[in-house]
Each structure stands twice: as C-alpha cells, then as structure tokens.
C-alpha cells in the first residue's frame, strides 16, 4: 500500500460507509487492533544523536527495518530506546523518508556509504525521489566504472576459455590487449594512410612530356599506382573478412557504420576490375574513384575523437536542421530582394533569383568572393544588411552544437548511453513492481485464505479445512501482515462484497476472458466454470466441505456455500448462473497450477472446464474422487455440453 498516505486510511475506511446501503452482501469483519496503544514517541539513538518520532510514522513502511519488528533487536532495555551504531548524518535522510514519504540523496555523501546505509535499513534505492535520482544514478555509475576500470587494468591476460573467435574480436576492438592486435592496428592504419596518399598523389601533375600538357602521375606510372591500390585493397578486404568472421553477431556487424564504410571503400576497386576496357562506362568508372576517398573514414576506428564528432553530428541533427532551415529562409529572402533591387541596373550579374542565391550565400558566410557585386545604391544597402544578418544567423546555432559536442565527449568518457536507458527501464520496472505489490499483496493474502477467517456469517461452517499442520502456517502468515495492511485488505474486501465481484490478477482475468469468449453457449453458463481460476485454495470461501487435498493432483471439488447462493438469488435477474452454480456441485475440474494451494504446488498444463447444462438433475456425491488430470472424462450430462480444454 502506498505508505505515504497511511494516515488517510482511517478516512478511506470511514468513507466506505457510503457503500453499505448499496451492497447486497454482508460485509466482512474488520480487523481489530489487538495491541491498541496510544500513539507514542519512540527514541532512536543513532551513535549518540537522538531522534524522536511517532511509532506510527515508522509503521508506514512495514518492509523496512524500522517499520518492522526487526528494530526490536536493537532495543536497549535500560535506556528504553533503540540504539543503532550507524552514521547519524545519513540517518537524517532516512528518517525523513518515513516522515515525508520521499527519500533524498544528499550530495555531499559518498555514494557507497549511502548505499550501505540504505541496505542496512532495508530501503531500496529506487525509491529515491526524482529530484535526487539523477544525481544518485550518475554518482553510482561513476563509481561502478571506476571500479571496473581498476578491475580491467588488473585483468591483462585473456580468459582461459575464450574461443579463438572471441579472442580475435577482442583483439580487433581493443588493440591494447595483445601485441598482435597492436601490430595489426598499426599496420592497417599505415595502409589506410598509404592508400589515401596514393589517391592524392595520383592527380598531381609530375613531369612533363614533350606534349604541352602536364599529365598527372597516375597516368604516367599506371602500373605502380595500380599495384599500390591492389595491395591496399587486398589488405582491407582481408581485414574486413576477418572482422566479419570474428564478429559475435554477424548481422549486426554488417549493419554497423564502420563495416559499411569498409565495404564502400573497397567496392570501387572490384567494380573497376569487372568493368575495365569499356569506353561507355569509363565515365562512370571515373566517378567511382571518388568513393575511394571514403577510405579516410576508416581512420575513425583509430581515433576516438572522430567517432565522437560523427556521433555529435548525428545527435545534433535537430540543431543542424534548424540551422539549415533558417539559412535557407534567409537566403531566399535576401536573394529575392537583391534580384529586384538590381533589376534596374544594366549589365548586372543578378540575372535571376537562383543566380542571386550564390551571392547571398557568399555574403552571408562573409566569404565575399567578389564575382557578383551589387551596383545600385539600394542593392548595396540590402547587401550590407545581408552580410550582417548572415553573421547572426550562422553564429547562433553553433554554440548549441559545440556544447552538445563537449557534453557528449565528456559523457563518452563514462558509460554508454544505451546502458543508462536500460537502467532507467529497469528502475521503472522495479518501482512498478513495488507499487503493484499492494494489489498483489491483497490477492496473495486472499489466496492464503486469510480473508476467509473474516467472514461474518460462518457459524456453521468449518473455518479451516486444510489439515492441521498448516494451521500454524496460517498464524505465522497472519503475523506478517501488519495492521495497516490488514485494514487495507479489509477495505478492498468490503468493495468486493459491495459489487459482488472479486479482484483477480491479470493472468487469471485473461483466462476467464478467453473462456467467456470461447463460450458459445446460449445459456451462458460461463465463467463460473472458470471460477476455479482464482481461489484454488482449499480454504477459499467457496469450499465448505471437508476436502482432502489429493496428493497426485490438486483438483478440488467446489461448491458454493449457501450464503453465496442466496446472494445470487437476490442479486440477479437471470436464473442461469444460479442453476449452474448449483450444478457445479457436480463439477470436478482442474485448475491452473499457478494457484497457491497449500497442499500442493503442482502445475498443470491445461484447464478443463466442463460447463454444466441448466437443468440440474443428478447430484454427484461430494466425496466422489475427481477425475485425474488432463484426460477427464466428460460427465454424464445430457444435452449440449461442450468440453473445452484450454491449454495454458
């Protein structure tokens, strides 16, 4: 239960009086406060500093140390106070958690000391409220990374049971792990450099023949350059194939950016090999050579900064887009203005608006080539406004991009962004679980039959139907639910009685839903047969007979108690469910083993629901042994009955 509002539970219970006139069923008995003492102050002595609070405050969170009976271990008889030999500063925030319901993380505290205190007092760190949670997570992440870095430094030798493939992959990813990897790293770097330089030098004019024109080196020393190119491409191909072999997930590797760059770098060569000596496509072939420049991107494997730059650009896509958009807007505006301003002057270069684009761009970026200049006075005025505004428009988004870059750079020093998202998801999942714990707690206690002892009208039925041995279990279980919880459960129980429906958990709800959907019975004897769904325990309030829980299976014969029948009598206008409920005396059915029956915890694989026809004729003897598991024979019922077997 949301302990923060524990103080309002009395109000919620009082408000339940509003349901009473509407309800048609009698209400369960309220749990009594056995040890009714007035609210008292208790003293918590933490290493000499005394804190005082109400006992009720601590009782709000019964699953922590201070809220449960665990604190009795620390009770000091002589001084009548609870003594904890822990840090009093951290204890302040822990006690504030009980008081306000929010757990804060003080910034000056060391993260591991804080974690230890939380663990000691039984508080999960996920409850830290949002104002302090980011800080907590950041510090925690730094700490774990620091520890991991220390570990990694010590861990130089490779793990003994890594396969060759894994070793290779590790060598590729971290060149510092072995000398071989380092050698490979430098060799590939060298060849990338060679390849890039070759491409560049190829176009330099070197030496002149007796012809007028200088020919570039590439055409002069064709074979040499070709050999160089081939060698580089060989190396790159071999490297790519080796990486592909070693990758743990080949599909993911092939989709990664680096591998695409690798492929694009070597593909032109192979395409060129295939398409040689064909004059038609030689033009295209020349274009392909441009792609060889992509080899320079292979350097990003060797440089962390380059990778970060690429990542920054990717993550600043929105800012870049904005920059582009505003520039385009300004360019169009100014180009139009300049065109019309210069329209009057003769021999003006501003022949059309697109032609003015060039002028605008050159002016706004303050390049000012001077190949196009305005001649009219109006043109000059607008031209100067254009250059001034250009500075502004470009200068404004740039700091955003720069700050993004620096942030990402710093972030990259620490952890992966992906890991942070996973942690956030995990945290939300944990909080959801602890919140849903309240509703599951209620369902859980229902299954354990605790509510059953709170029936108002049960004088002539046995309370406990399970064998004697589990009686003590029951009592133990009763103790563990605090008074607050039992009151809350009582409230929910009253609501169930008011509406004559029961809470079930998702799984069973879906089963019931499925079964009603499958039902094609006109008389609609539906989910009653799936009623076993929820309360499969021997001690559920439906079962009023002496049942021996079977050892082999956990089938139970269900009957409705007369009280329920009479309630249904009052309530519904339709007679069908009533009859079927009576005839469910015949009903022997299995149920899903997910229910926690005290006697056994076997799991079946099927639910067999045998709906009974409306007319009730035969009464099987209650002691008839139920049929064994999945091959339950259909009961001898006349008429239309459908045996549904729904597998789980």
């Amino acid at each position, binding site marked *: 239960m949301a302990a923060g509002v524990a103080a309002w539970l009395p109000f919620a219970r009082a408000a339940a009086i509003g349901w009473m006139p509407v309800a048609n069923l009698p209400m369960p008995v309220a749990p009594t406060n056995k040890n009714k003492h007035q609210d008292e102050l208790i003293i918590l002595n933490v290493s000499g500093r005394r804190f005082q609070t109400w006992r009720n405050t601590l009782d709000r969170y019964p699953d922590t140390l201070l809220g449960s009976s665990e604190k009795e271990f620390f009770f000091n008889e002589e001084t009548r106070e609870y003594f904890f030999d822990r840090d009093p500063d951290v204890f302040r925030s822990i006690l504030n958690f009980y008081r306000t319901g929010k757990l804060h993380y003080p910034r000056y505290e060391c993260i591991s000391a804080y974690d230890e205190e939380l663990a000691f007092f039984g508080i999960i760190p996920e409850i830290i409220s949002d104002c302090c949670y980011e800080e907590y997570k950041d510090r925690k992440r730094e700490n774990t990374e620091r520890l991991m870095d220390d570990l990694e430094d010590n861990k130089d030798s490779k793990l003994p049971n890594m396969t060759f493939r894994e070793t290779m992959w590790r060598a590729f990813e971290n060149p510092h792990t072995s000398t071989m990897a380092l050698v490979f790293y430098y060799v590939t770097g060298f060849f990338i450099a060679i390849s890039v330089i070759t491409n560049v030098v190829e176009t330099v004019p070197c030496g002149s023949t007796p012809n007028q024109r200088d020919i570039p080196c590439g055409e002069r020393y064709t074979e040499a350059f070709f050999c160089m190119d081939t060698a580089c491409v060989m190396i790159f191909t071999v490297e790519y194939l080796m990486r592909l072999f070693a990758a743990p997930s080949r599909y993911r590797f092939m989709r990664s950016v680096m591998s695409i760059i690798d492929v694009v770098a070597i593909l032109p060569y192979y395409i060129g090999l295939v398409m040689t000596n064909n004059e038609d496509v030689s033009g295209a072939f020349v274009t392909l050579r441009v792609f060889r420049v992509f080899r320079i991107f292979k350097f990003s494997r060797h440089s962390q900064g380059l990778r970060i730059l690429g990542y920054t650009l990717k993550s600043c896509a929105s800012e870049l887009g904005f920059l582009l958009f505003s520039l385009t807007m300004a360019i169009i505006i100014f180009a139009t203005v300049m065109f019309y301003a210069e329209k009057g002057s003769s021999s003006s270069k501003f022949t059309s608006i697109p032609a003015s684009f060039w002028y605008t761009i050159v002016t706004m970026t303050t390049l000012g080539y001077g190949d196009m200049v305005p001649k009219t006075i109006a043109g000059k005025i607008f031209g100067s406004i254009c250059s001034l505004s250009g500075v502004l428009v470009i200068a404004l988004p740039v700091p955003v991009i720069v700050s993004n870059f620096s942030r990402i750079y710093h972030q990259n020093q620490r952890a992966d962004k992906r890991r942070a998202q996973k942690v956030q998801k995990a945290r939300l999942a944990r909080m959801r679980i602890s919140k849903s714990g309240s509703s599951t707690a209620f369902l859980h206690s229902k299954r354990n039959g605790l509510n059953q002892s709170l029936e108002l009208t049960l004088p002539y039925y046995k309370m406990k139907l399970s064998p004697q041995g589990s009686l003590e279990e029951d009592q133990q279980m009763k103790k563990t639910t605090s008074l607050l919880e039992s009151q809350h459960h009582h409230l929910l129980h009253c*609501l169930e009685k008011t509406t004559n429906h029961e809470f079930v958990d998702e799984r069973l709800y879906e089963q019931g839903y499925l079964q009603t959907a499958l039902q094609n019975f006109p008389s609609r004897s539906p989910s009653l047969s799936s009623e076993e769904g929820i309360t499969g325990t021997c001690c559920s309030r439906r079962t009023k007979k002496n049942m021996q829980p079977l050892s082999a299976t956990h089938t139970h014969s269900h009957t409705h108690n007369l009280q329920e029948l009479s309630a249904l009598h009052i309530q519904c206008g339709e007679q069908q469910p009533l009859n079927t409920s009576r005839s469910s005396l015949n009903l022997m059915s299995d149920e899903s083993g997910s229910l926690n029956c005290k006697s056994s915890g076997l799991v079946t694989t099927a639910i067999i629901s045998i709906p009974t026809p409306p007319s009730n004729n035969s009464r099987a003897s209650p002691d008839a042994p139920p049929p064994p598991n999945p091959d339950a024979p259909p009961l001898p019922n006349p008429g239309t009955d459908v045996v549904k077997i729904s597998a789980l």
Partner: protein
Amino acid sequence: MLRSTLVAVVTLTLYLLDSVEDELELSAVRHRPEGLEQLEAQTRFSRKELQILYRGFKNECPSGVVNEDTFKEIYSQFFPQGDASTYAHFLFNAFDTDHNGSVSFEDFVMGLSILLRGTVQEKLNWAFNLYDINKDGYITKEEMLDIIKSIYDMMGKCTYPILKEETPRQHVEIFFQKMDKNRDGVVTIDEFIDCCQNDENIMRSMQLFENVI
C-alpha cells in the same frame, strides 16, 4: 520588411534556445483550522484523536486544505487496480459541505465524526447526501447509476466474474426495488432511512467501522 524578418529570425532562435521557462507557482492557499477546543466541542472526537487526525491531514496537505485533485489522488492510492476518481469526486462533494471547492480540516473532521461516531440515523443521512448528487432531496435512478458505476470503476478491469455492461444497471434496479416503496421512481430520505433500518445486513455493516480511530 527585412528588419522585421531579421527580428523574427533572431527571436525564433532565442526562443528555441531558451528552453527553460520558469513558471512561478502561485503561492498556495493557506488555511489554519479552528482551535482544538472548538473542534472538540463540535465533533465527537477526543483531543488526542483530533491531534492524530490533524497530524495525518497536515502531513499530506501542508497548506491546510485539500482540493479535489489531491483528494482524488490520495483516495486512488488505496485502490490501485481500478479508477477511484469518480467516486472520490462524489466523496469530495459530500465532505465539502460549504461547497467552496476545497475541504478544510474542519470539513474533514466533521465528516469523519458523523461517519465514525455518529448515530445510525446520521450515518444514513450522510449516505443519502452522498448519493443525492444534485442535493435536491431525491435520489433518481440516474444519480444512483452514476454512484454505482463509480463504485464498480474502483474494481478495475481484472475482476471475477468479468464486469459486464449491465451489471451496474441491474444493481440499481435491485436497489430501487428495495428502497423505492411507493414506486415513484425516486427515493426520498424517509424511504431510504426506513428501508435501511429494516435491513439487518445494512444495519450490521454500518457498525463496522466503529473502531477505526
């Protein structure tokens, strides 16, 4: 025209960069309750009980009043599986006796005093007041349907048996069959109290929460 464009571009940029807009929260309404002695006189709680109640109240609502949203939020925490907001709305109206949109500690404690320490007559009166949404002295079928639907809403989706569309309506029918003696389609306060006093289930359940505080 150019200058306006320029200004527009610059402001647009600045606006986009300035993502943090501080919104000053209007200072909350503060309310201090009447003195302890007065409340003691007006309600049936003892001094100690009032102290406990006030501490809990103030803890959750430091400003001293509960507005409807906080009320709904608090009440919904007790019913995690369903949607308690509609019923909380009706409850809020029942507690907010002077209809000023907020429940102060006095309203709260007076309501609780009736519910926990009042006579059966008073409790039934209170319940009638809760059901009578427009406070005209009659409970119509529509009002009752709203109330019952809101109660069923609190159960949520995962119930057994599955909640059908017509269940609340049937429930209303049963209620009216029981309560509406002269079959005029509305339930008056006298019919209501009369009928409840004759129903022993209801009588018994009214005593259920005696020992809550």
